[in-house]
């Protein structure tokens, strides 16, 4: 493979790769040391990064593990444990050159054997790895020497590198450590796992031999506090240095508190209202359109999230090149909705819809309650069924037994992962039963389109199609937030490009 071919293929990526390394290395810690107490909004579960499917656990694990490649703030793919990589012109061979002198927390050196081990256990069906599909086209993994890994694909799969950079898919664990990862994860990341008191707190400490320079803080204690008001109290009393997920209605309050500061961003999480195609009335485009017209997205955002977000018509990351900026949400128009329903044969009171909302996202329940009012005005009777997360997953996600629902996705920035999974008729996340041949063709085509610009165009087209056909009603990109004490620095490095996971490497505490 010739180097310049690669450059044309992944031009933008290489450019950032070069600029990335010095920028981080140049950065030093203004203050070193201290224990950072983080009020974490969720409970960590299985700590084996390749098995865990929840963002909450990844937020911790992303600090313990580094991947072969990663994504920067603007979602460009950059090397991490790999010093550089090359993709062959046919898109079938990936060569990674590993960084030398990288150490795992147990003191061992990172070699190509560890990479091979990590990926092969990941691909083993018995592992039950969530990211196994990322490796679906991988034919073989070769390690010609200690610092070179060659991955050969059976067929072209352009999203491979992007997927490898997200959700811990490319995380490398020491050879033979799979069995202990669940309880005592070991990686090559900036923080080292110390202990977990289940349901209570996780403690990490600085890994002094980290390849990119040791972290600023000595210790990170992530207290698992699911009750938002309790987290808030912890922050107020100084018991906690920073907390994520400030209750939406309290952000203004924290902003006005002179001892505290707020970090908030609106990329990473989008919410959409789902209509099930298996439910007969929703097969009619006019009904779907009518429902879109019933919803005042800005009002819904105010009601459910106290305005903490930005209304948007596309699920894509605004920062990504493929984002379709031309889409505008339909305004609320009850009269039009009524007319559309009448046209579809549903007079007032004819349509009765059950809305399954999960208590895992209380604001979905709030949103549903607001929808009930608008639907009533449009002559549709909406009833709510609250489901626990487990019930929602099994009923809506697996059994597709629902009429209407609402969901949010976070951190899915890789376009194939996002659009193919959600909208291709065979997509893994297509629980609405969307079957649109145009979208199927577009998403398949994107997989083998080598040119970035062309791929971005295709995905913009997909977004347009979803909007036109009202396959889903995307409502907003939700704000995520951190509340911190005034003396916490380096916050600009805290949130990863996916908008959902955090990196505490360069966060520091002023004395």
């Amino acid at each position, binding site marked *: 493979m010739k180097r310049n071919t690669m450059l044309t293929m992944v031009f933008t990526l290489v450019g950032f790769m070069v600029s990335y390394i010095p920028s981080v290395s140049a950065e030093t810690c203004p203050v070193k040391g201290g224990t950072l107490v983080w009020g974490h909004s969720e409970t960590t579960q299985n700590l084996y990064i390749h098995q865990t499917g929840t963002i909450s656990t990844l937020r911790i694990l992303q600090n313990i593990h580094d991947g072969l490649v990663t994504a920067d703030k603007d979602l460009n793919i950059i090397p991490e444990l790999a010093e550089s990589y090359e993709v062959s012109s046919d898109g079938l061979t990936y060569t990674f050159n590993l960084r030398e002198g990288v150490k795992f927390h147990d003191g061992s050196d990172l070699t190509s054997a560890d990479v091979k081990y990590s990926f092969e256990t990941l691909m083993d069906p018995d592992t*039950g790895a969530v990211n196994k599909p990322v490796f679906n086209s991988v034919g073989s993994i070769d390690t010609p020497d200690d610092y070179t890994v060659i991955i050969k694909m059976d067929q072209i799969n352009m999203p491979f590198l992007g997927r490898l950079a997200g959700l811990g898919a490319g995380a490398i664990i020491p050879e033979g450590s799979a069995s202990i990862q669940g309880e005592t994860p070991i990686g090559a990341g900036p923080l080292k796992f110390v202990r977990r*008191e289940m349901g209570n707190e996780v403690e990490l400490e600085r890994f002094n031999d980290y390849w990119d320079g040791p972290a600023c803080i000595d210790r990170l204690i992530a207290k698992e506090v699911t009750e938002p008001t*309790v987290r808030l109290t912890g922050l107020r009393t100084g018991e906690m240095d920073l907390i994520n997920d400030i209750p939406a209605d309290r952000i203004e309050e924290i902003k006005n508190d002179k001892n505290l500061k707020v970090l908030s961003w609106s990329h990473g999480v989008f919410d959409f209202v789902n209509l099930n195609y298996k439910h007969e009335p929703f097969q009619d485009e006019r009904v779907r359109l009518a429902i879109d017209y019933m919803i005042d997205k800005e009002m819904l955002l105010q009601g459910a999230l106290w305005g903490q977000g930005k209304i948007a018509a596309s699920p894509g990351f605004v920062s990504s090149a493929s984002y379709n900026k031309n889409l505008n949400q339909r305004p609320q128009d009850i009269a039009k909705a009524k007319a559309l329903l009448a046209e579809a044969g549903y007079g007032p009171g004819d349509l009765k819809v059950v809305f399954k909302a999960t208590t895992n996202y209380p604001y979905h329940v709030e949103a549903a309650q607001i929808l009930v009012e608008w639907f009533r005005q449009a002559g549709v009777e909406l009833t709510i069924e609250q489901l626990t997360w487990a019930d929602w997953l099994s009923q809506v996600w697996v059994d597709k037994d629902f009429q209407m629902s609402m969901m949010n996705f976070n951190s899915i920035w890789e376009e194939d992962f996002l659009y193919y999974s959600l909208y291709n008729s065979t997509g893994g996340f297509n629980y609405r039963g969307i079957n649109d041949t145009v979208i199927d063709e577009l998403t398949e085509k994107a997989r083998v389109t080598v040119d970035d610009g062309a791929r971005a165009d295709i995905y913009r087209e997909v977004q347009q199609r979803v909007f036109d056909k009202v396959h889903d009603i995307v409502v907003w990109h939700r704000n995520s937030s951190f509340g911190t004490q005034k003396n916490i620095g380096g916050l600009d490095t805290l949130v990863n490009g996916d908008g959902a996971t955090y990196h505490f490497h360069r966060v520091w505490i002023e004395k």
Partner: protein
Amino acid sequence: MAYIIHRLFSMAITLFLISIITFTVTNILPGDVAMMIMGTQSNPEALANLRENLGLNDPLVYQYSKWIIGMLTGDWGNSLLFKMPIGPILLQKMTASGLIVLLSMIIALALAVPLGVWSAVYKNKWQDTVSSSASIVGVSLPDFFWGIMLILLFARALGWLPSSGFVDPGEDFLLALKHAFLPSLALGLGLMAHLTRMTRATMTGILSQEFIRVARAKGLAERVVVWQYGLANAVGPVMTVAGLQMGYLFGSIIVMESLFNYTGMGWLTYQALLNRDIPLIQATVFVIAAVVMLINLIVDLLYPFFDPRIKLK
């Protein structure tokens, strides 16, 4: 001795029934364990694999015997949610909950016994009215309402005590007590009200008995008559009721621990239920039922120490 063996034997049968009920109920729980493990980022192939690996496709009887043999041999399996052996988790969470259950029982008894006795001594006088009214109000308030009030008062308004969290008593006992105090107090107040009513009723009965008159006729002071002659007879019944209330306490901690973010058995059970972590649900439900039963057995076996009339036959 034969009695104790008989009780243990009968306990074994009850435990067996408890295990069957637990197993049956958890197996008809809707929701897919494999799905829960993988979350939204899963795929059908991996799911099928996982189901097979978890033994979810085995016949129920086989699953049950595997489970019960595991429970008996100390292999309680792994939590699907936390990917950790269940035994140590339960031990840790049981300690945490044990602390608030015990503390709330102590608070409840320390308040209820004097109040109940006071009430019985001054039956139908204003002292009784005050104490009876307080206890009926106490019984009537939902315990999480107590919890909310206590959080508002002690944690928010006064800032004296932490409103949430759990600290391992092994690490810092005083801090652990501080964290356990509010949930215990909230639980204890509801329980206290119940026990006060019970103590009052028992003491009223005892104080109208002839031996109390005899004690007075001996010239003993009221203090001795009530607090020694009377109370010694109330210990048994009050302990029995307190034992029976353990069931109520272990139910209430589910709400209370969730409210106070106190990660004990109640929290664990709730998490397990929400996440359909079947092995964990089975273990927690089984352990709670077994512990409740065991506590009552212990109270029964201790009864002869409070009341020499009761012989264990």
